[in-house]
């Protein structure tokens, strides 16, 4: 296996983990925060009350666990790939979030909203074919 092939293989493996766990994390956080509700005022006692509800929410903890998994994959990929490559490429998570929001959380999504998400993903594909590293040794 050539070093370039290996570089792409491990890059795609980490991207897959990121694309699965980031949306799941966000959806669980969204569900958890909808259960907790928003702050009526920004007084310290109200914020402490909200924080205690957040810490007791199973969905929030599930979301944090998913986001931590995402974060570890993110740290690893950033040790070899450009930030400006990883960040746009992982934005496919936006489409996954919208699909989960629609099907799992029952959120209403307007046609223009869907169009926007698809345009964002198009941007992702434009970026996706650029070399993953432009600095240091082994830059393509």
């Amino acid at each position, binding site marked *: 296996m050539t070093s370039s092939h290996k570089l792409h293989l491990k890059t795609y493996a980490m991207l897959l983990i990121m694309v699965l766990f980031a*949306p799941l994390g*966000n*959806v669980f*956080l*969204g*569900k958890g*925060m*909808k259960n*907790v509700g*928003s*702050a009526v005022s920004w007084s310290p006692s109200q914020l402490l009350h*909200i924080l205690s509800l*957040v810490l007791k929410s199973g969905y*929030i903890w599930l979301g944090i666990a998913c986001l931590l998994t995402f974060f*570890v994959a993110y*740290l*690893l990929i*950033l*040790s*070899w790939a*450009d*930030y*400006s*490559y990883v*960040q*746009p490429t992982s*934005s496919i*998570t*936006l489409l996954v*979030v*919208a699909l989960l*929001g*629609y099907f799992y*959380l029952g*959120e209403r*999504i*307007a*046609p*223009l*909203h*869907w*169009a*926007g*998400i*698809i*345009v*964002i*993903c*198009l*941007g*992702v*594909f*434009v*970026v*996706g*074919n*650029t070399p993953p590293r*432009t*600095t*240091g040794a082994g830059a393509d």
Partner: protein
Amino acid sequence: MLEAFLLFLVVVSGTGGEICVTRAMKSVGEVDDFRPLAVARVISHALKVSWMWIGVSMMALAFFSLLAVLSIENVSFVVPITALNYAAGALGGKFFLGERVTPRRWAGVLIVCVGVTLVWLGKR
């Protein structure tokens, strides 16, 4: 207004944090060994880099702002809007990390920004 402020914090603090974390990971070096112990060693090494702590603090601020905005808005609206950090990220990658952002990448980032605008308009 509050919603816009929280989204601003999510984008700016989140992107700033990610750029600091990237800088820290680049100083740690490329990871080739993915066994749990080796990964734990890499993370422990990364935690000794000050950029990592600055980055994690900024990302924590972004996280709590995200929680706050998620209590007000739908996740399918909030998360696509945070894609604005792609523009901030390309700028940060170029000017802070010295990455060569190709015209094709800039074009992709521009398309992402158009998509974010459509998502925002779709909500209004």
